[in-house]
């Protein structure tokens, strides 16, 4: 005998719970923007968001501290831990600073007004969403562009008081209108490109013009959306990594390597005021002109052996 038999009570509870879950699904599926659901998410966002915020700072601390001090003499351990903590704090803030610096640089180039935020939680399951620690209290609204120092990250889909949910550009349901850098071809970039082989984290580009010639290495920025929502113009998106020419395909397709590493996000910026004029391609990072990868073979130069010097 292995299974516990379902008593009547068990069945009743099961049925009630399943019905509740199904009702929730149906309710939220039919109208995902109903005020009730928004209220629920708002409350949960304020509750869990706080916990996640605390958790992420703790996790960030430990993550940056990294490793352990195993093998240390016991009496030195306390000191080591303290020093490491200090060092990691320093490193952490340094990394943050550098990210922030780049971000501000980019924002300044594009004349975006941004609200900086940190990623505090990553979505569960298969959806590409993150939570950042800025919310409506900070002036963030839904359908705003999120970027980081490298390029486009995604868009804000939901906002609570102190947290926002960001739908990453790599989500399947995300569609970003882009224009290719030199030619100005219009197209759109959708969620993960499914390449049989090749690195993950790719996006998929489709262009409107069927006669467009795509070349690997072409960069693209966001093209303007209506009322600059959800995407402000001119945010770098990525470069074409590979052209996929499927037989029967109406328009050329390509895999796009996003500028921003969407799997390792730290500090992001939420564009709370779009630029007055589209920056066009000015925000794009300079194209590395000698693009071909250079293989450098380092030949070790014969050096006086340290043992000889030590022996002397």
């Amino acid at each position: 005998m292995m299974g516990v038999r379902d008593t009547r009570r068990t069945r009743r509870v099961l049925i009630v719970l399943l019905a509740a879950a199904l009702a929730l699904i149906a309710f939220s599926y039919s109208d995902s923007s109903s005020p009730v659901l928004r209220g629920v998410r708002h409350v949960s966002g304020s509750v869990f968001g706080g916990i996640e915020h605390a958790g992420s700072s703790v996790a960030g601390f430990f993550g940056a501290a990294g490793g352990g001090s195993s093998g240390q003499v016991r009496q030195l351990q306390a000191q080591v831990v303290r020093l490491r903590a200090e060092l990691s704090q320093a490193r952490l803030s340094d990394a943050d600073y550098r990210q922030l610096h780049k971000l501000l640089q980019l924002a300044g180039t594009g004349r975006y007004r941004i609200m900086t935020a940190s990623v505090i939680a990553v979505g569960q399951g298969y959806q590409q969403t993150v939570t950042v620690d800025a919310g409506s209290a900070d002036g963030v609204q839904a359908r705003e562009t999120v970027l980081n120092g490298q390029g486009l990250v995604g868009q804000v889909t939901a906002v609570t008081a102190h947290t926002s949910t960001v739908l990453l550009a790599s989500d399947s349901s995300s569609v970003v209108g882009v224009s290719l850098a030199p030619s100005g071809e219009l197209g759109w970039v959708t969620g993960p490109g499914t390449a049989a082989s090749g690195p993950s984290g790719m996006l998929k580009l489709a262009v409107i013009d069927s006669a467009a010639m795509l070349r690997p290495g072409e960069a693209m920025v966001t093209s303007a959306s209506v009322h600059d929502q959800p995407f402000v113009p001119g945010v770098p998106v990525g470069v074409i990594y590979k052209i996929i020419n499927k037989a029967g395909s109406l328009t050329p397709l390509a895999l796009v390597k996003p500028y921003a590493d969407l799997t390792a996000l730290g500090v992001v910026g939420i564009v709370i005021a779009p630029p007055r004029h589209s920056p066009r391609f000015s925000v794009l990072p300079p194209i590395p002109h000698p693009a071909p990868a250079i293989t450098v073979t380092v030949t070790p130069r014969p050096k006086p052996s340290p043992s000889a010097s030590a022996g002397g």
Partner: protein
Amino acid sequence: MRRSLLAVTSIVVALVLQLVVINGLHLPGGGVPDLVLVLVAALAITGGPVRGMVTGFAAGLALDIAPPGSAVLGEYALAFCLVGWAAGKMSRLVDRSALRALLALAGVIALAEVAVAGISIGLDPAQLSLARARQVLPSAIGYDLLILPFVLYLALLARRWAEAGPLDSDLDPASMFADVGSGSRRGGQHRPRQPQPKLAFSAGRPHDGWVGTGLGGRAAALRHPATPHGLRPGRGVPGSAAGGQNRSAQPRSGLPAAPVSIRFDGTRGGGKSRGFGVIGSPIGAGLGRHPHHPGARSPLVRGGSRGFRPHSGTPGGSAAGQAAALLRRPPSRPVSVKFGSRRGDGSVGRPLGAPRPAGSGPGLAGPSGLDRAGRSALGLAFRRQAAPRFRTGSLAPPRSRPKAVPKFRRTKAGPPAALAAGFGAGGTVAQRDLLSARRRQAGAPRLHLSAGRRGDALFGSGRGLRRSVRPATPRLRGSGGLRSPRRTGPRQPRFGYGRRSLVGFLVSRGIGGRWLASTRVGGRAKVWLIGRRNGGSR
């Protein structure tokens, strides 16, 4: 209470850990472990289906609404609720074999991952492509299974911790036993799987014996609320006894006064009252001349009164005890009905000699044709919580006890002569004999009932019993109305529904169905069905 708090805390911690740390990890294969899922499964398998369902639903809902939240509210609630239910249905396993529990949980978790992906695809096809699911799922399941043993171990530790302390405070043993016996019918008090008592719902027949408050037992007592406890002549078997498990009929204030009530009971309701708590002839056990055939009809007993009709109950039906209520009073400890964890430990410790204030009704009163030596046993209380063990081997070899025959053993001095004489002369223990015995503290009769002999109905031989110890395997056969459980095969209790769910079916068939059938009666617990009625009189 403590357990619920612990569950809530652990879920919240796991949730935050999952969202903040784990989901951001980059692991080879693309998947990440789902800590919340694994935790739900582990909590469910240590907690039973109801607890598992509620836990899973709550955890899933939290995962749905905690930012960033899922796309469709309720998808994780649905999936995890099912996970909790399925894992909770396997909650027996975890006390038997860690390996089997792990395997079962692995199956549940793998299915759950697939189900989550399926729900995601079904609800939002744009969000997840089949190709990506195929790519991610294996590694995700692999990581889940990797962390599963640790989480399960922690869950077992937590359960033990939650149950170890508060035995006298908030863990109500009475409800615990009632739960065990009655199949967890009490609302909100499901204390699902105590590690120690293995009281399975294997008896599904009318008149089958239940340990604990059977449904019928309670119902019967409710029907005769005024009847004082005692050896009530009922529809028991000759020599079967019922524990007065009925707390509702028993005045609570009288608890100290009525430490024991071994009731010979049963209702006449026949088919409707299932689950008599019956003590099958424990007292006569060992007194007969056939210690190795305790089931043989003893000349001692002809249940002289209306109480013991040879046709009505189960020969050697099961037992119930009062222990639950008594457990709450450890200091005075008027009775210790004990389930030891060793072979042959099912003992009724001093039930008769327990002192009690005069004037209270219950006691071993009335005619007691205690017949049919050694069919069953009684005992309920579990003093120790068994530690969750992660090993499949068993404990030390069973203590070399005297033969595992039910014994009526004296501890210190001999029983009062009258008592002995009473037994000797045909099994009628007059009340005054018992009372006199009770007054003399010394000669508290100790009722040791052990499993291990043919026809024994067993209690007690608990965890320590190895299944390899053949003689200890109770065989309910050899005496007329009993059939060998091996031949009967898996028997489904009828709890209102005759049907079995698909999962239940898969669970009992697919994974070791044969093993289950062989261990249904006479596994390590030995406390399952005591006597199974074949129907009819004999």
